């Protein structure tokens, strides 16, 4: 671009970020909230609030599983820890069949596979829209099939129906089988069951249907209702713009460390500039890390030519394993207490989960894991696992120990570090809060950047379509998103817990409220609208603890008594957000522009902004001039003192000299003083002129930043 490097970077910084500013704000805010995704989930499932961790939680879980899933091939028990209050259980529920039934089933499967291959072949022909359509219909016995697509769907239906029939036959054929647990919540078609139980009583907990914090988490990298790859590409593009914005912002910044300590409130434009600079510089390493690591994580869609496409395994796919009925013996409870003691002494931290394979048999194995991550280079598998078997009672030793894995190579290790940093998987409570605060700074940085753009241009571009669009959208996307988040939490508690598909309704409330705020922002593009939307946010977040207390099965006193800091922390965080929002409301309401004679009623903002700009500029110049005068006065005084000292020295050395010398030195002193005063006056004038021009430049640059 024409001009200096700094000017080019200013232009690039402005335009690379303003275009994606609102999406970036939404990504930053929802991503920052996702640091506390588990806490948000806990708050949004009040049915879990009653559960409190207990030393005997593992026995509670074991008793539940042996009563409800005795024939399962494996059990997974996730125990309460500092971020979980209930016990989470999952197990593989097999279809228990007799030997004869298994043989019959194998034969049927073979036949079915042949039939399916025929169906697939015909489906391929159908896709080409050729004569194979008729052939397909004949083979499938579907005489009324319509076009090729419909035929394909019917083929799929046929396959599914055949499988269902086989499944029914299997179930009918199964003899001596334990009845399947009908109460368990089956999430997958492969027999995987999941259940939450109270950590003290072992009672089943069925939390309300909610998207919870997972919705906010998913929204920040794949939006909602959008194709995953398309969303990744969009997020990748705006993240790239963000990275360019950050780097160009660093280059264009003239005094990066000086400005870090400067915050000039009530100065309109300068306040926004300072707020933007401080939040950007304070958490600069975090901003670079989070943007770059985010890009790395979604790079698959952005760089489709790089590497083999990996498909996520279908977690719900497959069939439940078929096993023969085995007589199990649960008469002896494994010595979990001793196992835990062994592991916790070795790791110095609590056991958080245990996997039991072949439970109730002689081959049973107990694999213990904890928060004992020893390395980050391998991503999530950096923890040691200790496995015991039934011989532990006699030997007192584990049967095997698997150390935490290391990355296979340096590139993979660096990638994993970024992955772990971005998702804060390693973080304890304090680190998580620090990351959260840094994320909030990033959100403020993006928000103030967008506002700064509008404030700077309010004088010159007021009334223009682009300017008004940005100004209005700022209100709806920044304040509106906060309102939407508050409304989402309220919807979670106010929509009846038993309502079908209530999670979709919660999300609809979120988007509905946000849309209303955006429209309102575009219609009323003034400070009053900021005040209204921020006030609504303030009310929503301030009253969240009250709402929580009224709509949870147990009150906040119970949470205090049982140390439910997940819930209390969420409420405190909401109060913190409310305080910040109320401070913003107070600021907007307090710093009212002075009334000016209205010549054009449609543009009161631009006039007041211009006046405020001029006032702040004049105040700054006056302050700097005053400082320069003080500095000059100090220098003059120092010179005088020096002169007086020299005079005193000469006077003392010539104390015996006649009075005429004294008169002479006094006259010289007066002459020097007069000269110094003239020089000071001249310097002051020069400094004032220089400062005026420098300030103009600064303001121009600051304007250029926006």
């Amino acid at each position, binding site marked *: 671009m*024409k001009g200096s490097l700094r000017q*080019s*970077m200013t232009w690039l910084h402005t335009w690379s970020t303003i275009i994606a500013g609102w999406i970036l704000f939404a990504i930053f805010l929802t991503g920052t909230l996702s640091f506390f995704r588990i806490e948000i989930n806990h708050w949004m499932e009040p049915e879990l609030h009653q559960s409190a961790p207990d030393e005997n939680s593992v026995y509670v879980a074991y008793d539940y599983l042996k009563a409800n899933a005795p024939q399962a091939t494996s059990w997974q028990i996730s125990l309460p820890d500092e971020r979980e209050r209930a016990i989470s259980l999952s197990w593989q529920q097999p279809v228990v069949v007799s030997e004869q039934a298994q043989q019959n089933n194998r034969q049927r499967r073979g036949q079915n596979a042949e039939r399916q291959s025929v169906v697939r072949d015909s489906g391929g022909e159908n896709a080409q829209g050729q004569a194979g359509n008729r052939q397909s219909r004949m083979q499938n016995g579907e005489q009324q099939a319509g076009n090729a697509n419909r035929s394909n769907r019917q083929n799929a239906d046929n396959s599914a129906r055949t499988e269902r029939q086989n499944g029914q036959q299997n179930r009918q054929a199964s003899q001596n089988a334990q009845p399947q647990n009908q109460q368990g919540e089956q999430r997958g078609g492969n027999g995987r069951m999941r259940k939450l139980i109270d950590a003290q009583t072992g009672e089943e907990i069925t939390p309300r249907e909610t998207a919870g914090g997972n919705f906010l988490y998913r929204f920040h990298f794949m939006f909602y209702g959008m194709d995953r790859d398309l969303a990744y590409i969009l997020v990748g593009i705006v993240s*790239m713009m963000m*990275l*360019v914005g950050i780097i160009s912002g660093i280059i264009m910044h003239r005094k990066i460390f000086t400005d870090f300590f400067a915050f000039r409130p009530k100065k309109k434009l300068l306040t926004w500039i300072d707020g933007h600079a401080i939040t950007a510089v304070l958490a600069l390493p975090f901003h670079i890390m989070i943007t770059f690591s985010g890009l790395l994580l979604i790079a698959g869609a952005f*760089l489709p030519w790089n590497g083999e496409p990996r498909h996520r395994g279908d977690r719900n796919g497959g069939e439940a394993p078929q096993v023969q009925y085995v007589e199990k013996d649960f008469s002896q409870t494994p010595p979990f207490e001793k196992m835990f003691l062994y592991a916790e002494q070795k790791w110095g931290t609590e056991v958080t989960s245990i996997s039991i394979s072949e439970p109730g048999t002689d081959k049973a194995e107990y694999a213990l894991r904890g928060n004992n991550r020893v390395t980050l280079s391998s991503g999530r598998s950096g923890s040691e696992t200790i496995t015991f078997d039934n011989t532990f009672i006699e030997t007192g030793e584990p049967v095997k120990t698997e150390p935490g894995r290391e990355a296979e190579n340096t590139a*993979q290790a*660096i990638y994993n570090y970024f992955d772990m940093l971005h998702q804060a998987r390693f973080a304890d409570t304090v680190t998580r809060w620090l990351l959260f605060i840094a994320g909030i700074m990033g959100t403020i940085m993006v928000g103030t950047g967008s506002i700064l753009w509008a404030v700077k241009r309010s004088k010159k571009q007021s009334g223009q379509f682009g300017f008004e669009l940005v100004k209005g959208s700022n209100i709806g996307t920044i304040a509106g998103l906060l309102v939407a988040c508050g409304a989402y939490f309220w919807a979670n508690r106010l929509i009846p817990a038993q309502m079908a598909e209530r999670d979709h309704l919660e999300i609809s409330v979120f988007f509905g409220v946000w849309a209303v705020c955006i429209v309102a922002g575009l219609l009323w593009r003034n400070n009053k609208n900021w005040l209204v939307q921020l006030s609504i946010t303030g009310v929503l977040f301030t009253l969240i603890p009250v709402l929580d207390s009224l709509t949870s099965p147990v009150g906040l006193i119970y949470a205090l008594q049982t140390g439910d800091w997940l819930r209390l922390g969420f409420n405190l965080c909401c109060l913190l957000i409310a305080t910040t929002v109320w401070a913003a409301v107070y600021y907007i309401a307090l710093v009212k522009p002075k009334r000016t004679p209205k010549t054009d009623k449609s543009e009161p903002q631009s006039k007041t902004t211009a006046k405020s700009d001029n006032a702040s500029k004049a105040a700054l110049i006056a302050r700097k001039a005053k400082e320069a005068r003080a500095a000059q006065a100090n220098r003059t005084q120092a010179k005088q003192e020096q002169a007086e000292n020299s005079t005193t020295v000469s006077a003392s050395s010539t104390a015996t000299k006649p009075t005429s010398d004294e008169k002479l030195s006094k006259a010289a002193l007066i002459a020097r003083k007069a000269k110094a005063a003239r020089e000071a006056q001249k310097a002051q004038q020069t400094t004032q002129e220089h400062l005026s021009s420098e300030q103009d430049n600064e303001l121009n640059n600051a304007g250029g930043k926006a």
Partner: protein
Amino acid sequence: MKLESFLAKPAINVSIRTILAILGGYSLSAALSLLLASFAGLDGRESEVFIRMIFFISYTVTIIWTFSVNSERKIITQMCLLNVLLWLAVLLTGEA
């Protein structure tokens, strides 16, 4: 001379630089990351994550460079030349 004045028009200038930055930068970064992965002798998953990291660093630098050079003619020439050279090198090393 006519070309210079045409390129200097603000709308044309910004459009050309944006296209150069987005497309030229993407192509340049892709070639550079492939080439570096090839020189480093990486393959499989290691090569994949290495390319990801180099690509995004290179893309950021290229975009900034595209907007920092004053002369439009210079940046167009340099971008095209670098792209040709790097992709030739990639083809010669058999990475593409």
